């Protein structure tokens, strides 16, 4: 009996895992192969550990702001991002990056921005407590 319950749960877990990999991002089927510049920026993001202070979709460290949608903020823009990343601030350290590397990170952040909005709008909250997010 115990083995049966375990087996059923484990099988469901495997099926769910496969489903999640394939269908969690419904539109992924139509996305073209990700641009190498983005991948490079993503790797730089990890190598410089930006995630220890910044969040993407609220996930990461909490010393700095969430950067998921900084690319669509019309008051900021590329030169603004460039200045922060290249020179740092009092609180954010400067990373010795070449201009090229800084722009790859910006490419990555622009790509992240296209995937959706981090802050869930109040209208998306369903009466049952869950969200219904329109893309």
């Amino acid at each position, binding site marked *: 009996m*115990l083995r049966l*319950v*375990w087996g059923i*749960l484990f099988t*469901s*877990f495997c099926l*769910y*895992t496969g489903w*999640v*990999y394939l*269908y*969690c*991002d*419904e*539109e*992924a089927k139509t*996305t073209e*192969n*990700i641009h190498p510049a983005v*991948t490079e920026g*993503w*790797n730089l993001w*990890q*190598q*410089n*550990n*930006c*995630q*220890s*202070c910044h*969040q*993407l*979709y*609220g*996930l*990461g*460290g*909490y*010393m*700095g*702001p*969430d950067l998921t949608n900084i690319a669509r903020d019309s008051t900021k823009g590329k030169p603004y991002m460039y200045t922060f990343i290249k020179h740092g601030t009092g*609180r*954010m*350290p400067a990373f010795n990056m070449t201009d090229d590397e800084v722009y790859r990170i910006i490419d990555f952040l622009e*790509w*992240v921005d296209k*995937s*959706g*909005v*981090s*802050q*869930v709008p109040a209208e998306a*909250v369903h009466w049952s*407590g*869950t*969200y*219904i*997010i329109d*893309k």
Partner: protein
Amino acid sequence: MPLHIRLYTKFVFLLLLATLVFGLFSSWAYLYPEVFNKYLPFYQLRPMHTSAALFFIISAATLCIIIFHKNTIGRDATTGIFEKTFITTWVATILVIFIYYSFKKFGGREYWEFPAWLALPLLLSWVLLMIGYYKGWLKCADKKPLYIWMWSTGILFFFITFIEQNLWQISWFRQSFLRELTVQWKANGSMVGAWNQMIYGSSLFLMVMISGDKTIALNKKAFFFYFLGLTNLMFNWGHHIYNLPAHGAIRHISYIISMTEWLIFISIIQSFKNKLEEARKLRHLLPYKFLVASEFWVFANLTLALFMSIPAVNRYTHGTHITVAHAMGTTIGINTMILLGVLGYALDIDKKINTGRKLFTRSYNLAQASLLIFWLSLILAGIIKGYRSVTLNINSFQQMMEPVNNVLKLFAVAGAGVAIGLGIIVVQYWQSMSDSNSNVKDVK
């Protein structure tokens, strides 16, 4: 206690001390970056702290299983060889990881921020652990008590989730940001469930040993809660990514499954009276104190988690220090407490700490009281940030964070209390090992 296990125990204690020291430094580097940025910036200290914490928890969980192995599922001539090679490769890789960190060489994902290739030796050593463990497990034909189920589940799921956690290295997973993030947090969420299985298993084993009552690891209710835990491990990782515009079903499934945890909540309240009685009988035992503490922290963190699991509430708590309260509340309050209890039992500290008993009790009380302030201040910091960013919609980050950072000063002070309290206890454990014979009695 064989030499390799003694050395591994000392390594585990060093990891805990490192966690405390790096945690303390991180809290200062957060508050005063002007001072720290040049030599020990937050982005270096945070991974050192979180990796030390995770490696401490996972190493200590495996250590407890290795120690209790011989009394529960038996060993053969090769068990020792697998254990030793596991310990050697595991410890060596962790040391290399910290060398990389000290040179600011990163490359991995959250909590596992080391260059990605180092995941390979970690995985390899885990496989060795698995072979050694499951060989004994296969031979043990009789009805297995629940703690053996839990250890076996934990070891297996750590293996699965560790691989999953590294899938980002395959480019297909990186073609969609939503997919990559979903898989990453699916793995992270379930991995916490995996080490909880290992640790709760050892805590159950400890209860069997000190109460002498074998039925608590065999009864139906205990198995019911094991399966409930397993279901949550498998399907309740979605609360990390409620705000992600991924497939809605992930959100709904996680929300529904997480609400089954109310059953645990109710059961804790129901058994409260029995617990008090048990506590009256056993409270003179030092390791038992840690189990009492862990039960308080299970209750506190479960209450918090139940609210955070409602997406409408999560909208305010996600991305704030409430997440940190949840993370450290559980890893310190539950995992570390249980591990200190179980290791204290294995080291027979009740007999070894004689003259130091008063100091032990004081340190224990200091750690618990500080942890409560530490936890509450993180929650308060999170509430303020949630209110200011979601409700007031304050745009300037500096302005929004100002009152939050003031609360975090209290957090840093309380953190020092946690570090001193736990630090003294670890040093006492260490000293007690100088003339140690392990205390593991037979259960069969």
